[in-house]
């Protein structure tokens, strides 16, 4: 059952590939070469591990959520605490990995795209730490909505470049980053933020995020006399935290559940449920499930959590859906908010709205499982960044009540 994808063309079954202008093909090949060399280089692996341990604070704990478990009365709930990483989410695992790779490849400049700013901050952080020049492309609309994250990137020494094309959001920022990469491939590394984009990006991001899964597996086994959990649940935006935690379990007899943002409900059209509701298509150089119009124009997704509203999804998830190895479900804004509240009240953990989608799904599933079964949730990030959203949400609800 060992995974053998992607193939030499970067395909996961029919998904993935490199649908990019010829001008970057060279850079992608160069990147793949550099990446393969790096991961086979013991020194690189040592550096990476050193930085994850001594800079980002890995291993992150696997926390037993005793009170939550008791409240649900079903399966035991364990939380893989990516929220405890430096900068507050799993994003930094990948940013550190790619930044070190960039350095190793002799590229002194990195560019990155960002939506709400999470990956932008992670990239700017890694750039500062490793002495790289950093430009972050960000939609004008997102810049307006996230001025504090913009400021934070600047504090870290990054230049934030407004993107005014298209809908002025994440997808356009990604387009723009790719475009700009094209014109500066020689000295510039494109540090992508999720397990998306043209091959070999999905593979690279998975590699750097798989530490989540392998750590969780080892920790769980140690706590449970070598046994494995029954289920692993993770939220899916582009799919990097999910593919990272799944990596530890995909070749085992463990049920895997990916959770997309159901937004205001699939029927309203306001969602980011790419796999539930998208069709095969090409986005950012990759063939995958995609939210698009009849004719193929990419549609703007919606979710209360900024990190999940990506109109595509990493190609490996598309593949894992097609093979039914992973079960993909949707959770609405409302369900996610409720789960966030419950986790806060029961365990004192304010998780990211993205992660709350995974929590909500696990809550649903735990109830119909038995107390001798266990679920690991990938708590991909902390909720500090979402407090303002939650606060406004609350105010709105309060005003409806009156």
């Amino acid at each position, binding site marked *: 059952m060992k995974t053998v994808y992607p193939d030499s*063309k970067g395909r996961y079954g029919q998904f993935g*590939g*490199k*649908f*990019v*202008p*010829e*001008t*970057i*093909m*060279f*850079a992608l*090949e160069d990147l793949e070469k550099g990446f393969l060399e790096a991961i086979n280089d013991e020194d690189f692996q040592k550096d990476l591990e050193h930085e994850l341990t001594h800079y980002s604070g890995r291993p992150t704990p696997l926390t037993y959520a005793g009170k939550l478990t008791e409240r649900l009365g079903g399966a035991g709930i364990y939380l893989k605490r990516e929220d405890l990483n430096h900068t507050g989410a799993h994003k930094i695992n990948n940013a550190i990995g790619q930044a070190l790779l960039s350095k190793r490849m002799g590229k002194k400049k990195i560019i990155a795209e960002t939506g709400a700013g999470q990956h932008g901050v992670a990239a700017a952080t890694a750039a500062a730490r490793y002495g790289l020049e950093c430009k972050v492309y960000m939609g004008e609309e997102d810049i307006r909505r996230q001025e504090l994250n913009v400021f934070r990137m600047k504090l870290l020494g990054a230049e934030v470049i407004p993107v005014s*094309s*298209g809908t002025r959001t994440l*997808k*356009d920022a990604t*387009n723009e980053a*790719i*475009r*700009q990469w*094209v*014109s*500066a*491939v020689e000295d510039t590394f494109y540090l992508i933020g999720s397990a998306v984009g043209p091959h070999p990006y999905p593979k690279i991001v998975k590699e750097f995020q798989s530490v989540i899964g392998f750590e969780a597996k080892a920790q769980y086994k140690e706590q449970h006399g070598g046994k494995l959990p029954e289920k692993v649940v993770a939220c899916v935006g582009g799919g990097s935290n999910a593919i990272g935690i799944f990596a530890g379990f995909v070749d085992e007899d463990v049920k895997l559940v990916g959770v997309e943002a159901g937004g205001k409900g699939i029927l309203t059209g306001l969602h980011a449920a790419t796999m539930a509701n998208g*069709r*095969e*298509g*090409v*986005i*950012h*150089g990759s063939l995958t499930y*995609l939210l*698009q119009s*009849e*004719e*193929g*124009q*990419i549609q703007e997704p919606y979710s209360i959590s900024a990190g999940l509203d990506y109109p595509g999804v990493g190609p490996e998830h598309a593949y894992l859906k097609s093979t039914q190895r992973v079960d993909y479900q949707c959770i609405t804004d409302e369900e996610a908010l409720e789960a966030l509240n419950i986790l806060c009240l029961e365990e004192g953990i304010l998780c990211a709205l993205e992660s709350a989608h995974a929590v909500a799904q696990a809550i649903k599933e735990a109830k119909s499982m038995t107390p001798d079964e266990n679920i690991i949730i990938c708590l991909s990030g902390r909720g500090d960044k979402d407090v303002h959203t939650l606060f406004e949400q609350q105010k709105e609800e309060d005003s409806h009540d009156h």
Partner: protein
Amino acid sequence: MTTRMKEFQTLKAPLFVPFITAGDPSSEATVDLALALQNEGASALELGIPYSDPLADGPVIQRASLRALKNGMSLEKAIKLVSVMREKGLTIPVIIFTYYNLLLQLGEQKFFELAAQHDIDGLLVPDMPFEESKELQEACLQHDLSFISLAAPTTSRERLKEIGRTAQGFLYCISSLGVTGTRTSFANDLDCFLENAKASSGVPVLVGFGLSSREQMQQFEGKCDGYIMGSAIVKKIEELGPELVNMETKDKAIAAFSDFLSKVVPVKVYS
């Protein structure tokens, strides 16, 4: 290959292939602009299909795409528009320039049917590199369409050989890194790149990306068989947009467009 394309390949250098976005500023105007281009010496026409996420395009063509999308343009409509152009006298080859996703959603089968019905000559998919395009290239061959391949200064010599060997219609050599858009300087080792391109391919070798003046083209004289010009033209169309959609000013706008063209089309162009 269509007869039109065959004829195109026999034209004397320098060839001139302009790019316009279908539906910008309107379907009607696109037809008029195509005819004007032919009049001013275009050897073939690249007809761009507007896309929400044009990865290979710079701001000028991005804006044109947005305008065209607002006008409801689509791949299917654009293909059908070519019949209108033909009716009005367009005889040069028309190459559909479309991002892969639009083609995927329309369906290749449907695309080839429409292409045949509406006298299309070629297909260019800017986000479909050589590795991914074999099947589509073959399908094009079967349907008498030329699948236009691209090569870049960063393309390795081996790849370039492969690309050149299988190139149909013409070989599109990207003159600089980056996206489409007018620029003032070009990749350094361009001469060497063009030499290799010419050596490896049996079809005309055209240079494009960022050409905006006759002077720029002259840099490549003798090193290629012609030029592709996109953003500079689309920018002019953007300027003339409001006049082009106004019945009263339309003719004047087309005249201004032709005037502009007469100053940028390469000298000694066959027409």
